């Protein structure tokens, strides 16, 4: 059986890990490569590095960081943040990233998804979507959640699948940073709408929230940041809990 994935997310700014609460008020949460190694040892199934400074300022450090991470890790990782062209993506993939996450640029220029998918295969194209429930309608937002659009979440996920996305990383801005659980109802609807994997993001607070995201939200993977960074949830404990709940999960006793 294919197992469900647990994905720590490292938000990167100027080469360091940070985590915002509702996307603002950043706090420093350490060195990305050290954190990445720790998570790999603890049994993380995959990692995501999001350069949150990327869409606003230049980041030459990102591709160097990717190279360092690739040298240190033997599990897959995704890199995102400000990727807006095939050549941006190529640089990161060539340095060892397994997948590229695109967000704002894909909304502005949807054809980018087709181009990336044609150039590198859909398996390495992750479309990250930030959305917020506004009067009962889930609306896509840009630039790390700062700029609203008129695009409905459901229309957008269908479109990105058709354009060649290999996976969707859905962040509920209403849940992100609250530690009150994931947007399970919406997740389940998205999972029904498309036939590509969906990563749930935004709202992790307890191990039960992860159970619900898999069982109710039908998520293929769950992504979280601060609960892992600050040790509130330990990955081995989380996986033990998921296993008890009969969720297919990769249990390892490895130290590498």
């Amino acid at each position, binding site marked *: *059986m*294919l*197992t*469900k*994935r647990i994905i720590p997310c490292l938000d990167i700014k100027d080469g360091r890990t940070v985590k915002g609460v509702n996307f603002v008020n950043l706090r420093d949460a350490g060195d990305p490569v050290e954190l990445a190694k720790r998570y*790999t040892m603890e049994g993380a*199934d*995959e990692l995501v590095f999001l350069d949150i400074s990327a869409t606003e300022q230049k980041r030459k450090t990102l591709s160097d960081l990717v*190279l360092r991470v*690739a*040298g240190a*890790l*033997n*599990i*897959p990782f995704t890199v995102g943040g400000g990727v807006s062209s095939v050549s941006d993506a190529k640089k990161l*993939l*060539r*340095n*060892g*990233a*397994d997948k590229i996450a695109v967000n704002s640029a894909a909304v502005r220029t949807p054809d980018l998804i087709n181009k990336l998918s*044609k*150039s*590198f*295969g*859909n*398996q*390495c194209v992750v479309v990250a979507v930030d959305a917020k429930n506004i009067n009962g309608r889930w609306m896509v937002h840009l630039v790390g959640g700062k700029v609203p659009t008129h695009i409905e979440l459901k229309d957008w996920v269908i479109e990105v699948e058709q354009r060649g996305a*290999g*996976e969707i990383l859905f962040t509920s801005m209403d849940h992100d940073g609250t530690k009150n659980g994931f947007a399970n109802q919406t997740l389940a609807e998205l999972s029904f709408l498309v*036939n*590509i*994997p969906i990563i749930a993001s935004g709202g992790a607070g307890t191990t039960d929230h992860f159970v619900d995201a898999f069982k109710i939200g039908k998520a*293929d*993977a769950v992504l979280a940041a601060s609960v892992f960074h600050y040790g509130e949830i330990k990955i081995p404990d989380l996986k033990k809990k998921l296993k008890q709940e009969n969720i297919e999960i*990769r249990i*390892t006793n*490895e130290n*590498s």
Partner: protein
Amino acid sequence: MNTIIIDYDAGNVKSLQFALERLGVNAILTNNSELIAASDRVIFPGQGEAISAMKKLKKHGLDQLIPKLKQPVLGICLGMQLLCDKTEEGETNGLGIVPTKVIRFPNTVKVPQMGWNVVTHSNTGLFQGIEQGCYMYLVHSYFVPIEPETSAKSNYAGEYSVGIKKNNFYGVQFHPEKSSKAGSQLLENFLKI
């Protein structure tokens, strides 16, 4: 001993190079036929899409060279699929080493399969000393059916091949360079064949 990684612009080869480096091997990335032919071991990586991959191989004459190689050859992911006769992906002809057709997963499951799946195997050759039921990392939409050449299996909408072997040709569907300790063991086994 020298190990070559065939360079045909296939996605993430850096991680493979790093994984080999951790095993003490500096693999050479090249598309030069003479270097490839003269090497001790050849790794044929793959990521991306079958049609453009075959085009790139043809451009360098590698579609003719690879099937004639006598040293151990390891195809990874799309590299394994292209060892086969044909693939449904763009109805492309592969290298014709393993007589089977690569087909797409049905829409009863999410496609691509993405993540860690359980692998059972022959416990010989590449898989020697690797735990039965270990987890390997897979990302793919097309798969090799169970054939006489199958050396490892997994299950996604039914059983299928995640390892094949024919003569000096080996193929794995998962990414050993991304499959933690078990993956690293597999690469080490390949280097010892």
